[in-house]
């Protein structure tokens, strides 16, 4: 069986990649996708802990299901707001949304 550490490292890497995406991307949709990556890293963690450390009860599994569901809802909401941005400004570039500052 693959050691738990490998899964955790994969999770951490995924999390870091997602974080990088949030910091580096300028398109709102891509930022959102990067956040999804981070959430999946969380899911990996949860499932790994669940399977390797405490197989019973399946709390981690349940948790990750909730994370997936909420992430979907979040994506829906975020896309609605991004769509609104696009309609108002004809762009999805977050750099151009800087009316509010200082």
């Amino acid at each position: 069986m693959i050691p738990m550490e490998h899964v955790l490292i994969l999770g951490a890497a995924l999390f870091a990649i997602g974080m990088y995406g949030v910091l580096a991307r300028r398109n709102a949709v891509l930022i959102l996708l990067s956040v999804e990556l981070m959430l999946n890293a969380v899911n990996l963690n949860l499932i790994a802990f669940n399977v390797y450390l405490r197989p019973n009860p399946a709390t981690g599994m349940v948790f990750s299901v909730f994370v997936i569901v909420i992430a979907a809802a979040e994506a829906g909401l975020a896309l609605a707001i991004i769509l609104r941005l696009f309609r108002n400004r004809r762009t999805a570039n977050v750099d151009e949304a800087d009316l509010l500052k200082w």
Partner: protein
Amino acid sequence: MNPDYSLLIPEYILAVWAALVVAVDVMMPKLRRDVPAYLAALGALAAGIASVLYIDVNKGFEAIPGVTIMHVDDYTTYMRVLLCGIAVFILLMSAQFVRMRLSHAGEYSAIVLVATLGGMLMVEGTELITSWIALELLSFCFYTLVSFARRELRSNEAGLKYMLLGAFSTALFLYGLSLIYGVTGTTTYDGIAAALSNRGEDLTLALVVGFVFIIAGLGFKVAAVPFHMYTPDAYQGAPLPITAMLSTTSKAAAFALFFRLFTTAFLPAHEEWKWMIALIAAVTMMWGNLVALQQTNLRRLFAYSSIGQVGFMLIAVAAATQDAGSSLLFHMAGYAVTNLAAFTIIVVFFNREGSDEIADLAGLAERQPFLALAMVTALFSLAGMPLFAGFFTKFMLFVSGWDAGLEWLSGVAVVASLISLYYYLMVIRQMYVIAPRVPGRFRTPALLWGVIAVLVVGVFFLGIWPAPLLDAADTAAAFLFRA
């Protein structure tokens, strides 16, 4: 044992009422657009009254036997009543605003109710998944509400920033939760506390990283420096009553969750996180109050002022004693009353003048003396002058911090609150000293006049006779520290 569904009646009321408000709005298209807000206010009032019935109830809601996902006790009751009360005032100040400036009045009011529902669940949650979902419910409502003025670029932009950064911070928060779950193997607060008190030393680092991420996530929700960056933008862009709600409901609920989580689940590892929160608290109160000095927009000023207040409240979380808990609850109530008063005044002014720049307040004392005087009351209270609510609430916070061995932090807090006086006085000066830009007196609408009067009386009541509320807060906080 089956879960005791009767514990959640206030939540049912809010949920059903929210649906009802939307239904009424859909079925009666001719309805005046301020009516749904009044209707929803009744719902919040009903939920608040229902919450009062739970005084001295002390029962867990067990989703499956042995797993208490929610707990109804005096802490819950105190916060439920507070949140419902805030919702009532938010809806009352919203009514005219919505009528004049927003569409979809029904949805607006319904979402305010659901946000309150989310806040209540956050307070009750005693299990990580539940608390987190409640947090998301509240956050989603706020994302929607902040960007509710769909055609306004600022509102849209504020919503976008809040939403994307909120999602990001949620991811951090969840990563932290997953680590805590990994270390302790459970998600209930009690289980975590038990596991933490029997933990081995080798797990400390994983635990500390978990705490860092959780503090970052919650720090974002309460707007602590350096997780605060979205706050001024969201405050400025959101529809005005929602700004008020951000600074009250969102903050109160997040702090209630913060405090419950850290004092019931994480208390055995107090040494691990005490310094982190104390550090953030110090930075937050200095940063918020210093940057506030440079603001020209009233809402941004209040945003930074609220960041400063967050710093004060974090003292209580860092101290994590029963006294700190009661002073936190007490401060929350005082802060909510004061801030609601200030924002109702700003709403009245905004409804009439369409401006929220500090410079436009010039000569308010001549144009509408009542508003100016009420504003002075609110500002003095925020600055922590005696006889106003803010004095005792802040004083208790400082004292509890001092008592818990955080003398330096209380010292910083006293200095920070002195700095705050300066920018509050700048606003007062604007209202009283500078000649009005636009001549002409105006009147405050009767309903909002009444609302402001009630809140101002509340500010004085808490400042002069704080004993009843403090007793309640003390009883409430005691529930977290029974063990």
